[in-house]
């Protein structure tokens, strides 16, 4: 049993090292295939900005317009 546990530990350790190595080799698409005409997912310079969470939050002006239209309607 100690040898089996040792083997599982070694396998897990090597897998983590291999996984980190593979991850470090990968490049985002905006780095691996840069081009002047099309933006491909650069998180720092894309249209929605670096901190976009995927959930649309309306701006204060949009909220005001929506509230006003809701009241008038």
């Amino acid at each position, binding site marked *: 049993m100690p040898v089996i546990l040792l083997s599982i530990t070694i*396998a897990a350790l090597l897998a983590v090292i291999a*996984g980190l190595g593979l991850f470090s080799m990968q490049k985002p698409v905006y780095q691996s295939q840069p081009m002047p005409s099309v933006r491909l997912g650069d998180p720092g310079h894309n249209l929605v900005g670096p901190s976009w969470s995927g959930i649309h939050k309306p701006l204060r002006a949009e909220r005001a317009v929506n509230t006003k239209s809701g009241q008038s309607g």
Partner: protein
Amino acid sequence: MSQRLGRHLLTTLVLIGALNCPAGAQHGQDPVPPASTARASGANPTEQAVTEQRLFQQQRKLEGRISIPDYKAALLEQPQGRSYQFFHERLLPWLMGALIVAMVAGLALFFVMRGRIRTQAPQTGIKIKRFNVLERTAHWMTATCFIVLALTGINYVFGKRLLFPLIGPDAFAAFSQWSKFAHTAVAWPFMLGLLMMAVLWVRGNLPDRHDWRWLREFGGFASGTHPPAGRFNAGQKLIFWSVIIFGLALSVTGIIMLFPFWTLDINGMQWAQYGHASAASILIAVIIAHIYIGTLGMVGAYDAIGRGEVDLTWAREHHSLWVEQQQRVIRGHDDSVGPAGVPAE
């Protein structure tokens, strides 16, 4: 009166027909375009549009021009893609499923008929060393990795058919994502273990003159007596070479897929998947048999690779030539065995 009733009936039928027109249009074929959409010449412009079949009559691929640097995206469709889809979505699940189910059913039948294989003579209590720590570490590291690789690999084929309906889309997506990470990471210690086992055990697994007799007598089941065998019998040699050959095939095709389009084009990638999936299906079935005989099927087999030593009776019955060789080593007459060939006591 009858004329009035007739008018009412006619009006009702017209109304029903008018109400049903949209529903009928949903199920029927596209209607003939009205005259206003046709050209002045009366010709239907969509009739002249090129079809997929006509394009394939002229060339084997549907290709276009793209503005992104990834030139592969310009290839829209080709016949090999449909062959690959047929393999991946139809043939492979049946092939893998049939191999696994047939192996499990065969082993279950064998267990019912034969039961556990026990030694014919009583145990002596004398232990003989069968595998050293390095050998056992190589075996268990490879085994651990193979189980992870097999389960995560099976998820590629059967996950969306079996697991997805049970756990739902969110859990299945998360599980598959982590399965993919595990599959690509664990592949490396698997390949290392494969290399270690090949180096450590290739000598003992070379074919010899006793193998044919062992196979002919089906390891003693046909004759009722154990045929002579060296450190590894013919059955173990078949397992070893299956692991080495199919493991090598899995490693090569796996590396090709880990670094996509590095050496091969889209057709080569598809062939790599054919090879990877086929080799995996066969090796999973072989390893199920190996696990069975090493645990439930044969009493004492687990001790060999679990604790590294076996009872002398077990060794004499299953590997008589190897035991004789060990005894010659003790007497100092033969130094042709490996480091594992040292009796425990």
